C-alpha cells in the first residue's frame, strides 16, 4: 500500500468527523425517556413510602435529586443525559427502598430477639422445673 499514509489520514479524518457528527446527531435524536421517567418516579415514591427519608436519607435525597435533574434535563431537551439521570434515580430510589426495608427488618429482628430473650428470662429461667 504505497498510498497508505494520505489515505489513512483522509480516512481517519473523515471517520473522526463522521463519528463526531454521529455522536452529536445521536445525542440530539435520543427520544424523551418517558419509560425511565416513570420508573424513576415510581422508585422514588416507593422509597418514600418505605420510609427512606428516615432509614436511608442520603440515598433517598440523591434519588430525588437525580429525578429532579432528569426532569430538568428533559425540559432542556437533553434526553440522553436525562435518561442516565433517571436510570440513576431509579436505581438509587430502589436502593433507598431496599435499605429502608432492610433497616426496618433489622429493627424488627432486634426487637424480636430482645423480646425472646426477655420471655426466655421471665418465663423459663425462673421457677425451674426439676
Amino acid at each position: 500500500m504505497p498510498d497508505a499514509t494520505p489515505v489513512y489520514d483522509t480516512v481517519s479524518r473523515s471517520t473522526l468527523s463522521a463519528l463526531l457528527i454521529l455522536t452529536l446527531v445521536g445525542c440530539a435524536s435520543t427520544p424523551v425517556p418517558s419509560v425511565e421517567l416513570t420508573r424513576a418516579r415510581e422508585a422514588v415514591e416507593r422509597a418514600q413510602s418505605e420510609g427512606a427519608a428516615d432509614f436511608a436519607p442520603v440515598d433517598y435525597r440523591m434519588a430525588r435529586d437525580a429525578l429532579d435533574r432528569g426532569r430538568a434535563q428533559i425540559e432542556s431537551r437533553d434526553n440522553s443525559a436525562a435518561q442516565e439521570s433517571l436510570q440513576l434515580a431509579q436505581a438509587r430510589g430502589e436502593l433507598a427502598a431496599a435499605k429502608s426495608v432492610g433497616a426496618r427488618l433489622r429493627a424488627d429482628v432486634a426487637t424480636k430477639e430482645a423480646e425472646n430473650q426477655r420471655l426466655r428470662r421471665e418465663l423459663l429461667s425462673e421457677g425451674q422445673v426439676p
Partner: protein
Amino acid sequence: MRPYWLSFGLLIALGACASAPKRDLDFERLQADWRVLDSREDRARAPLEAARVDDTLASIQAMPKSEREQRKHLADLVELRIANFSASVAAAMDRERMLALENEHKAILLEASRRDAELSRLDAEKLRVQSLARAEEAERLAEQALVERERTAAVEVDADLARQEADAARRLAAARGREADLARQEAQLASAQANSLQQQMAALRPVRTERGQVLTLGDVFFAGGQADLKAEARGNLKPVLDFIDRYPGQKVFIEGHTDDRGADANNLALSERRASSVRDALVALGADNGRLQARGRGEAVPIADNATADGRARNRRVEVIVDTAN
C-alpha cells in the same frame, strides 16, 4: 504511566465507542462484586428479578465497550444495583431470621405453658399429698378419740358392771331372802297341810246317807290336778281301812268327784284315777280287792257351790261308801 493514560483517555474521547480499554478498574471491581454476590450461598434465598439481573449483567458487559462517560454511568448504575441486590439478600436473611425468631417465640410460649402445666400438676400433686396427710391425721385423731372414748366407756362399763354386780348381789340377797321366806312359808304351809291332813284324817267321820255309810276324803289328799295320793295321805289311810273293816262282807264303792273347772271328760278321768288311787292304796294296806269298786263321777255330783273356792274345794273329794242298805 501518565502519558499512556492521557493518550488512552484521548483515544476514548476522540475515538470509537467500540474501542475497548485494556484495563478498567471499575469494571473489574464490579465484576468481582457481582461474582461475590452471585456466588453467595444465600443467593438462592433472595431470588432476584431475572430481568434486572440480565440488565445488570448487560450493563457490566457493556462497560468495556462503552465510552468513558457512559462507562462511568454504567459503573454507578451497576454499583447501585449490586448494593440493591445485597440489601435484598440481607433482607431475605432477616426475614428468615424473623421467621425463626417468631417460631422461637412460639416455642418459648409453648415451653412456658408446658412448664406452667407441669407446675400446676406439681401443685395439684402437692395439694393431693397434703390433703392425704390431713386425711390421715384426721383418721389418726379419730382413732385416738375412739380409743379415748372406748377407754372412757370401758371405765363407765366397769362402773356400770360394778353397779350391776352390786345390784345383782342385792337382788340375789333379796331373792335369797325371798327364797328363805318362801321356804319358810312352804314349810309353814306344808306343816299346816300336814296338820290339816292329820286333822282331817282324825276328823274322818262316816256319815249315814241313803246310800249307806259315807266317808269323805277331802282334796287335801291329792296334789292339785294329780291323781296320786300324797305320800303323807297314803300313810294316814288307816282310819279308812278301819272304817271299811267295820263292815265286813259289804260292798265298798270308792267314788271320785271334782269341781266344775276344766273339761268334763278330763274331770271324769281325773275322778276315776283318784278313786282308783284310793282303792289301790287301801288294797296295799290289806283291804280285800274284791269288795272295793272304784269309779269316777266327775263334776256330776257336787255337794257344794262351785262358784266359791271353798265350795269347789269341798266338791273335790273321794267318797268311800259302804253299802249298808243291802
